[in-house]
């Protein structure tokens, strides 16, 4: 019993060191921009940079659009598979996992060929077109996360019986979706949404190759050209991700109705 407790502490301590040492190092470095004293100069630089604000807002907008499209597409699909084609579930799950297997670079080159200047649908020629393409790409990337969390949410409720109960009470399919299914998988949808937002905020490959003014390429650009600012920026990005994860935890911990 005692030995077990000691071991647990040692393992925890090692893990904490593994995670914290680089963070502390980065933080310490970020604070050293002014010679001789610690200061927040690097952070001031970062937050004061117009491009930081522009790219960050752009990526936030992208994250929102991605989440909305993703949820609107995936929730009904996952629900329909469960209700009408349960045998297809493992196949659908496999398909949704493909974006994790196919590298983003392959997907984006596919897009450039399909939707490039000399294709039948030259989306990349206009900003709106390229934005749309990026959003669709992000929806693809978010598939595994949203689908998995939605499917887990659906597993935790008796989808078929609740649907039938609602139908027997006169509800149409849309009513069933909005009043019965969604409220009961709200926490799962939110956690998938926050995960997606965290990924979209830092995504580089798609944004860079489609030449979009997103936060990922900006971070890369800054990292290649400056010393202290990238350290500050990575702390900011880390805090953001951490904040989103905390939100997942907060929503995940709340029981429906309570």
């Amino acid at each position, binding site marked *: 019993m005692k030995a077990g407790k000691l071991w647990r502490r040692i393992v925890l301590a090692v893990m904490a060191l593994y995670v914290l040492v680089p963070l502390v190092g980065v933080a310490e470095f970020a604070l050293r921009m002014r010679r001789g004293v610690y200061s927040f100069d690097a952070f001031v630089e970062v937050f004061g940079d117009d491009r930081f604000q522009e790219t960050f807002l752009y990526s936030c907008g992208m994250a929102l659009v991605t989440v909305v499209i993703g949820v609107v597409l995936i929730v009904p699909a996952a629900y329909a598979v469960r209700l009408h084609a349960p045998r297809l579930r493992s196949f659908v799950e496999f398909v949704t996992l493909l974006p994790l297997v196919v590298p983003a670079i392959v997907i984006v080159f596919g897009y450039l060929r399909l939707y490039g200047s000399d294709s039948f649908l030259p989306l990349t020629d206009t900003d709106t077109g390229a934005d749309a393409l990026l959003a669709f790409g992000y929806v693809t990337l978010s598939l595994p996360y949203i689908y998995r969390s939605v499917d887990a949410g659906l597993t935790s409720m008796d989808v078929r019986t609740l649907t*039938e109960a609602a*139908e027997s009470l006169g509800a149409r399919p849309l009513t069933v979706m909005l009043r019965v299914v969604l409220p009961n998988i709200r926490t799962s949808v939110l956690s998938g949404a926050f995960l997606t937002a965290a990924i979209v905020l830092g995504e580089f490959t798609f944004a860079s190759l489609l030449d979009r003014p997103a936060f990922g390429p900006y971070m890369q650009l800054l990292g290649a050209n400056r010393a202290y600012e990238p350290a500050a920026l990575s702390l900011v990005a880390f805090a953001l991700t951490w904040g989103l994860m905390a939100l997942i935890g907060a929503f995940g911990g709340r029981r429906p109705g309570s």
Partner: protein
Amino acid sequence: MSFLTLQGLRKSFGASVAVQDFSLEAERGEFISLLGPSGCGKTTVLRMIAGFEAPSAGRVVIDGEDVTHLPSRARRIGMVFQSYALFPNLTVEGNIAFGLKVAGMAKDAIAERVKEMLALIGLPQLAGRFPSELSGGQQQRVALARAVAIRPRILLLDEPLSALDAKIRVSLREDLRAIQRELGITAIFVTHDQEEALALSHRVVVMSEGWVEQVGTPAEVYRTPRTPFVATFVGTANVLPCRIVDAVSGRVALGSVEIDAAHALPERKVGDTVVLALRPEAISILPFDGATNSIAAVVRDVTFLGPVARLRLVIDGDVAVTVDLHGEAARALPDAGARVVLWFRPESLQFLDRREHNLEAG
């Protein structure tokens, strides 16, 4: 014209047939049970009435309206599930109000109806609770209130009591019956529990392997079972294969013993095999031989069950017979190995059909 007509319902899933040929006519306000072992097709019949399964053949007619091809939401039925199926995100009040809101009822009318329903199920103090904060029995009451709140034409219940423990099961069963009577609603109740079916129903439909075995009042189904399946599934019965000795007077041979069955059997010939059912409680044990239908038997074992003692015996020709003794008769029980004489009234014998399907339910 009956209120609910099911006509030749059949349902196959791929190559397997869950319901073979189901016909039933129910009167308004009637309480009908579908009784049978697990997998015999009860739920499938109920789901065809509810509109959750499309019949492979046959029709569902409610109050003169053919609803066979209507979606569930347009059928105006109330459904109660074994698993309660309350909406976890809604309170008791919200659950009961669900169907009323969907129907676009006015707010104060909804509040009124919800209050009325809560009083009906005797849980007015729980309006604000969530389903996860209720016991199983309470959840099922709320589910019942939710189903009847929309004033459905028919109430469908799929083993609503099976998930509850024994005490609650009996008390909720009685409340269910009282509520059904009070509302005068036509109810179809699915169960595999014969006691439930007998206690609740005006009529019982006994099913086996997708077929209707018999339709009748609880007393009819119990006293005059028509098939070996019904005789043994509803209560306990000795199913005795006999040979006809005299078709006119109704004498048959059970092994080497001749007995009087008190039924004329005009359509049978001497030597035909017939199957008779005899309830264990219809048999007495006599100290002496001689009366009509008295058969020598050897006691194999005796089980004391409180109000009843159950004896297993063997008569000539290795035919096993079960006998239940109550009251006075159970005071002095024979020992295993004892030689005794069995006696029963000829009227207690019930002739069984070979399995006879396509029964027309009246």
